[in-house]
């Protein structure tokens, strides 16, 4: 299993740093969710790790080898940009074969993995944005590598395909390091193990998502009957919503409702701890002094 390390990395464009003293290590196979408001430096971070941008200072290392000097280290990463990077004049098969001829792998395998069989003879330029995204993702899986950098892989993609992509990412993350950026905080919470929060080019948070706690634990209960007279709850979007200090209190409430004869058809957490963190990191909250 490869280890990714960034040591005091400063990087940017045209001599202007965007990333400032970024340091972190990814030592376990997992999905590291990279969050941050627009312009925070997420894409710059990905490009720097992928070797597209050379850091102004600091080091990016794979298994102890410096990315800048080691060709072997560079070969260990796969990078998915939020640009499709597809030759649009080619058919899907030919476009994937184009990259397969450069980096290895087989177009047919990638087509099969992403279920692109029906599209393989269509021109890339004639596909919808979501379809192009799938083809773009397919090229990343032409060759197996140790580290995957996925910059918004589920943007512009319908929910069914998003789920498919997340399943693939979850599968590869069992043995590889995956850095995954997303603006979908619920998706990030569902699939991520670790969180890297980028704010103004610095790493504002680096830790496990499971260690994060919501400021307030809000739970929604969907019931067969009206429970507003039984408990103090607001009806929001079909859910009776209550706030608790801990998940255990929510569990006790569930027991109370069931013991009272209420048929509870669904119980779900409504709050996302990532949302609170994200809101704190966004420029608007910074401006308001939050």
């Amino acid at each position, binding site marked *: 299993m490869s280890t990714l390390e960034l040591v005091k990395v400063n990087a940017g*464009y*045209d001599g202007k740093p965007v990333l400032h003293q970024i340091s972190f290590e990814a030592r376990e196979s997992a999905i590291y969710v990279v969050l941050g408001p627009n312009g925070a430096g997420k894409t710059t971070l990905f*490009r720097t790790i*992928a*070797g*597209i*941008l*050379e850091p102004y200072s600091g080091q990016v290392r794979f298994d102890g080898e410096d990315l800048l000097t080691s*060709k072997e280290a*560079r*070969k260990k*990463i796969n*990078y998915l*940009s939020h*640009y*499709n*990077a*597809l*030759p*649009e*004049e*080619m058919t899907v098969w030919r476009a994937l074969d*184009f*990259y397969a*001829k*450069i*980096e*290895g792998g087989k177009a047919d395998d990638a087509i099969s993995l992403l279920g692109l069989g029906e599209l393989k003879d269509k021109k890339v330029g004639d596909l919808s944005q979501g379809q192009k995204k799938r083809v773009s993702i397919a*090229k990343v899986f032409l060759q197996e590598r140790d580290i995957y950098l996925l910059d918004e892989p589920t943007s512009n993609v319908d929910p069914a395909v998003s789920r498919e992509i997340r399943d693939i990412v979850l599968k590869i993350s069992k043995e590889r390091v995956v850095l995954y950026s997303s603006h979908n905080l619920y998706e990030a919470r569902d699939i991520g193990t670790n969180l890297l929060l980028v704010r103004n080019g610095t790493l504002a948070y680096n830790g496990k998502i499971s260690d994060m706690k919501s400021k307030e634990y809000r739970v929604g209960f969907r019931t067969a009957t009206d429970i507003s007279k039984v408990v103090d709850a607001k009806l929001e979007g079909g859910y009776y919503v209550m706030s608790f200090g801990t998940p255990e209190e929510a569990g006790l409430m569930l027991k109370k409702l069931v013991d009272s004869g209420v048929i509870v058809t669904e119980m779900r957490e409504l709050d996302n701890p990532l949302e609170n963190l994200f809101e704190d990191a966004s420029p608007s909250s910074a401006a308001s002094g939050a």
Partner: protein
Amino acid sequence: MSSKLGTLIAGRSLSLAKTYVVQAIFMTVVGTLFSGASHIASIASTVGVPSTDVSFFTSTTSISFFAVPLQALAAMFFATPVVLLFVYDKNNGVLEYLLSLGISQRDIYMQYLKAGLILAGAIGVLDIFLDVTAGTLFSAGSVLFEIPILAIALDVSVVSLVTLIMMSFGSFQKQRVGSNQLLGTSVGAVLVMPTFYIPLLLPSITFWLDLGLACVIAGLSMVTFIASSRLIKREKLLP
């Protein structure tokens, strides 16, 4: 990893811009007609055209050397899609992805240049075939091989320099399809312009002067290649 890229790009260029292919072949044929021009007089006389009317053609074989710049321009047209593709690939993230695969900026320039040279070489082979054929048919004498040699030397050198200049320029462009086509054509035209005048002014040493010009252009290409791959930062290859 990157060695096949040039060939792949050449193939993509050909399929993208068929009008440039037609244009290039047309100019090559026109150039070939010039390569046999010195014997137009003998043809003309057989159909009764007075010799005084074609005396310019009988007095010099220099007019044949007009084939050289025309065929060099044809090669440039043939290779123009490579530059268009470079800007296109830059703007849709293909170059970024190639960088992420570990292909260096220098290698990327090299492979797009290689693609241009593959196309220039292909049209150069056509030049040689047509020029030698025309020269043989029209009993061209000493220019039978001089013109094809100059044509290919100028094809390769002009395409190299124009491709490198336009890629460097294209690195700063944002338009989806390079609006630098006219600039590329202009640069190429300026480079080959002397070869229109040399045969008229210095006919006895045309071959050596044209060959010397091709070498100078080739030298400028090398300098441009070294400078651009070092001076233009890799972030200029990003969309």
